[in-house]
């Protein structure tokens, strides 16, 4: 039934997520956006890659789900969407999945402006495989493969995808639930390629290696770094260091000409 969030959860499913995992929050927020739009979930297709984040739709969502290969979710989704444009197609996957192994598919789908809504669940680490560095890990962060702190610069995924031609690009954190839900709704309503980067912290693999002992502490740590775009305006590069700027970075108007 359209609009009923509880009906959107697959009955009898035990969540595979660690207690306190922010992805549990995101399960609810994505479904809330769909419920608020009163979308009949049977018209939707959820495609995910491999990783903890890829488990958000599969098996939690009571809809058609395609749990694919590591990195390939967008390519699988492209085939399904192009063949049946009636399918409202959403991709939900991790930062490693979409930006490392799947980075090429990400920029090309943005370039084509394929009508997909992509939720990039950014915990800034490879959660599932034990907390290795990802292309979204901030500099200085300890991971199981950056034992002296990460020395590589992370991608600014929103800039990357906007530059590649996406119609709608935004970044929010699970700690900004209402704006995030509005953004997911905007993404779903925007024809063309929509990309929403969601800061969704992993206390198990990220937090514990960086002196953040609990889920709450990890969540607070990231929430404290988030600034809205307009708050960031006028701040010096020094003041912006380590900050996560949230907001909309492309909303269709950029593409008008």
């Amino acid at each position, binding site marked *: 039934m359209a609009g009923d969030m509880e009906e959107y959860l697959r009955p009898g499913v035990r969540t595979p997520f660690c207690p306190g995992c922010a992805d549990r929050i995101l399960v609810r927020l994505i479904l809330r956006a769909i419920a608020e739009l009163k979308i009949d979930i049977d018209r939707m297709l959820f495609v995910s890659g491999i990783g903890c984040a890829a488990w958000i739709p599969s098996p939690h969502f009571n809809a*058609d789900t395609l749990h694919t290969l590591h990195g390939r979710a967008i390519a699988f989704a492209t085939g399904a969407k192009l063949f049946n444009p009636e399918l409202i197609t959403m991709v939900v996957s991790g930062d490693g999945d979409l930006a490392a192994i799947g980075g090429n598919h990400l920029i090309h789908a943005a370039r084509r402006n394929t009508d997909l809504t992509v939720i990039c669940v950014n915990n800034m680490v490879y959660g599932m495989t034990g907390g290795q560095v990802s292309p979204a890990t901030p500099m200085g962060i300890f991971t199981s493969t950056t034992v002296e702190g990460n020395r590589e610069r992370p991608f600014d995924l929103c800039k990357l995808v906007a530059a590649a031609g996406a119609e709608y690009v935004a970044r929010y954190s699970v700690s900004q639930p209402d704006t995030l839900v509005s953004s997911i709704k905007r993404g779903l309503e925007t024809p063309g390629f929509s990309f929403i980067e969601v800061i969704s912290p992993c206390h198990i693999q990220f937090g514990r290696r960086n002196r953040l002992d609990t889920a709450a502490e990890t969540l607070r740590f990231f929430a404290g770094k988030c600034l809205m775009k307009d708050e960031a305006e006028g701040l010096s590069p020094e003041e912006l260091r380590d900050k996560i700027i949230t907001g909309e970075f492309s909303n269709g108007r950029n593409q008008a000409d």
Partner: protein
Amino acid sequence: MAWKEVRSALPAGNYYYSGNEAAAEGAIAAGCRYYAGYPITPSSEIMEWIAVRFREVGGVFIQMEDEIASLSSVIGASWAGAKAMTATSGPGFSLMQEGIGYAAMTETPIVIVDIQRAGPATGQATRVGGGDIMQAKWGSQGDYPVIAISPWSVQEMYDQTINAFNLAERYRVPVILLAEQAVGHLRERMNVVEKIAIFNRRKEKGAAPFGAGDDGVPPMPAFGEGEKLLVTGSSHDDYGLRKVADPLVQARLTARLHNKIVNNREEIIQHEDYYAEDADVIVIAYGFTARSSLFAVEAMRREGKRVGMIRLKTIWPFADSLIRDVGSRAKKIFVPEMNRGQVAGEVMKYTCCDIIPYNQTDGEVIHPNTIMGELRRLL
């Protein structure tokens, strides 16, 4: 039954096509309406032909960013209800391997045309090769079933592409048209008949999409039909729910995937006999090499030599009982191949009669004179 007679997409009659063009037309005739590809010699003409013809017949064509994406999108389209295909050659076929395993595990009907060129690696892009036989069977991790077909003519590039789609839909399995450059670029007459038989995947509302069904092949719904599908490459139960630590689920699934092909091999495997009945030396050949071999065998028969040939039209599943039977009758079996003995090794698995491989990997087809020379030494 899901068999149906349909009108051919092309008007009945004779056509002068290349093998690659014939494969594209065969796909269209079979009902293929999704194609994704990435350019690679010597297969690109298939994609270019499709790009033009899909505008006329109403299919979805896309050139993707690489072969991994091509095959991934083909699998996605198949679950959206399409008969879907891609074509490639060695380097692209290598990139597709993970996706082939995924299609086998998720029982997704897809067709891949591999126009084999001389390898390994980039090898000789415009030259012929036949080295992908084992890769077609074992290229992705784990044990999984595939069907692979070896066409020897332009006519068969057309007919066997139709057959490839029928088998894919019938058994919910990836089917590989394992052609060689020499057949893909061959240009000769082919005939299109007015009506062909096609098989469309079986559907049954509410049935388990990964259950055993009657014959090990479950019905397959599409996205958007309200079935709330769980499709995953992880081990899963009859309804697609991930079960990644249950030995029983894993054992049942892997056995069924294997058995649905092996138990139906009589229905899948095709071959042709030429003078094999009373032959002392039997050539086992496939693809373009079977053309040269038949020429050689017929020339020697005219000289009264007791030589014969078996042409394998299906490579995987392998024609094990046929080989057992041939091995019990022939004195010697000669296996000429454009690789280092990939099918000869299979033949050796099923018979202990005297097996003589002949391996040519110089980027050229094997000439009939070469085969005649070798056969004379064996008689």
